[in-house]
């Protein structure tokens, strides 16, 4: 209820449906959803956006956004998005993918989409593990980090090194906007939102493939309380996954939003 003498500083975005999410308490998937909804609202894209959910905790993303949505097989969201965007080139198409989905099983599809300069946007949630299946090692799991499939901590000798996805994709000519942001505190959340905005602006302008990697928490599988999980992002993930712009199309770089 807003009174005459007040302004609204924040209200729930219109493109979020009324349904409460199924995410664990404090999981920053929820923040990422909110930011996407805010950007879609601000850009007025509700009627023209089609989302592509992936397989992971965010598999039900389609329940929470009030626009058309489809759900892709594990890792194949960029291919589905390509199929949609190519026949509806004036629509806004984005995928929402986890790190297992995008950087493990779906690496082929995401590189190909970036290589093709597919004019889609990817919201990439890096929470350093496979949340949905109960916390197995992901390509993004940090060295030494314990998961249910690296019970003694990820041993880089036998289990390999974390993949820095944004850096990898930024090598692609077809990429218009590739950045990494984090969801661990208000300042970074604001920066994340701006990045999401710019990613969609990239698509609106037809400047190629755009991706925002978001460092995100998984309190449940990390076995931490939500506040500690955010601190863990800051202290452990950011040193390995630096917050940075890896590729920004000059048109976007010169934009004032």
């Amino acid at each position, binding site marked *: 209820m807003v009174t005459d003498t007040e302004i609204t500083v924040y209200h729930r975005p219109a493109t979020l449906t009324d349904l409460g999410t199924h995410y664990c308490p404090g999981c920053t998937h929820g923040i990422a959803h909110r930011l996407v909804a805010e950007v879609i609202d601000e850009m007025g894209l509700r*009627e023209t956006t089609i989302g592509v959910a992936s397989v992971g905790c965010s598999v039900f993303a389609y329940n929470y956004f009030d626009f*058309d*949505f*489809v759900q892709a097989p594990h890792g194949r969201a960029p291919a589905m998005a390509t199929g*949609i965007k190519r*026949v509806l080139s004036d629509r806004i198409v984005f995928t929402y993918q986890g790190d297992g989905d995008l950087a493990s099983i779906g690496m*082929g599809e995401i590189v*190909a989409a970036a290589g093709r300069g597919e004019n889609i946007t990817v919201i990439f949630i890096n929470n350093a593990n496979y949340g949905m299946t109960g916390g197995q090692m992901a390509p993004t799991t940090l060295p030494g980090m314990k998961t249910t499939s690296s019970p003694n901590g990820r041993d880089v000798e036998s289990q390999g090194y974390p993949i820095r996805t944004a850096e990898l994709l930024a090598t692609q000519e077809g990429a218009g906007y590739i950045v990494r942001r984090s969801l661990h505190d208000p300042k970074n959340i604001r920066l994340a939102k701006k990045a999401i905005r710019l990613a969609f602006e990239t698509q609106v302008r037809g400047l190629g493939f755009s991706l925002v990697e978001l460092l995100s928490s998984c309190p449940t599988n990390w076995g931490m309380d939500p506040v500690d999980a955010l601190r863990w992002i800051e202290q452990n993930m950011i040193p390995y996954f630096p917050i940075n712009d890896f590729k920004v199309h000059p048109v976007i770089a010169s934009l004032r939003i």
Partner: protein
Amino acid sequence: MVKELLKGNIAIAEAAVRAGLQAYFGYPITPQTELLEYLSKRMPELGRTFVQAESELGAINMVYGAACTGVRVMSSSSSPGISLMMEGLSYIAGTELPVVLIDVMRGGPGLGNIAPSQQDYNQIVHGGGHGDYYPIVLAPANIQEAIDLTVLAFDLAEKYRSIVIVLLDGSLGQMMEPAELPPMQPLRESYPEWATRGAIGRERRIHTSIYLNPVEQEKTNLRILQRWQEVKKNEVRYKSYFLEDAEYVVIGFGTAGRVALSAVRAARAEGNKVGLLRPVTLAPFPAQQIEALAGSSKGILVVEMNSGQMLDDVMACVKGRTPVHFYGRPGGIVPLPDEVLVEIHRMTEKSGRLNGHPRDQWLERMVQHI
């Protein structure tokens, strides 16, 4: 109304274009590649969508995405590439979307070879990814049929919200025959009420194959199965040759069916009352027709370019009421009419051992010769 001399792969591609194909996604693989190559030129020319995907996995999921928007969409591949599409096909089936897929089969298993074969029968007709669903499977035996069935495929796909697979072997892809292409259909302008094309002035729509609650999943499966019952009722297609007075029946699809036709003619010329049933739809299978023939004939010979895959379906229809024989050439070999004639003789003269499974008997004979 003019016939042209057309190559199978090209004929199918152009037939799809004329049937209103709006988007094609594929990946090169012999002996299907010409189809993709043709469309790489033809589709952009017409302002339609062509994408060479990064893989067959990419292709089938691009098809999946495009199908969500309600456009006429197609992919094509050959045996190993088709295997890679199994997960995607299962999702498409679970989401109840219309999709057309062309499978130009080659020799296998594994990498195998690029010669004509019918090795995919099982995976297309029976297997085809996890789950309870059936694609419609059309099996042309000549170029005109390949054209007509490609056009039909799009209509059936939309009518039943189903996957429709046109299944042919590499020789049909490479062969030329005179055939008539259909007129160019206008592209669709209105879209089905389920299409996700952006929620402009309407409620949002969703396409998903998740039904976390098994009760919902079961309902979905039953709904899909009900639709399949409709297909079984309405869409069985086959061709019969000399069946009116046939004492013996040969059954074969696609190229094997054509080869059998030559052998059947030769047998007729010798005075043998032999007929041919050539299934045109492999799914739905002409089960009633075969059952009826089993009742009225003294023997049935199944001819395939594999080790006996449709054979099992025929035997299930025959139910032991008449002896079933088998002749197959797996691995990329097209059987010759003379070989089939020998098998017809074996059947009519009852010279073969008759107890045991026809596949076992055939294998015994084959291994002698290799």
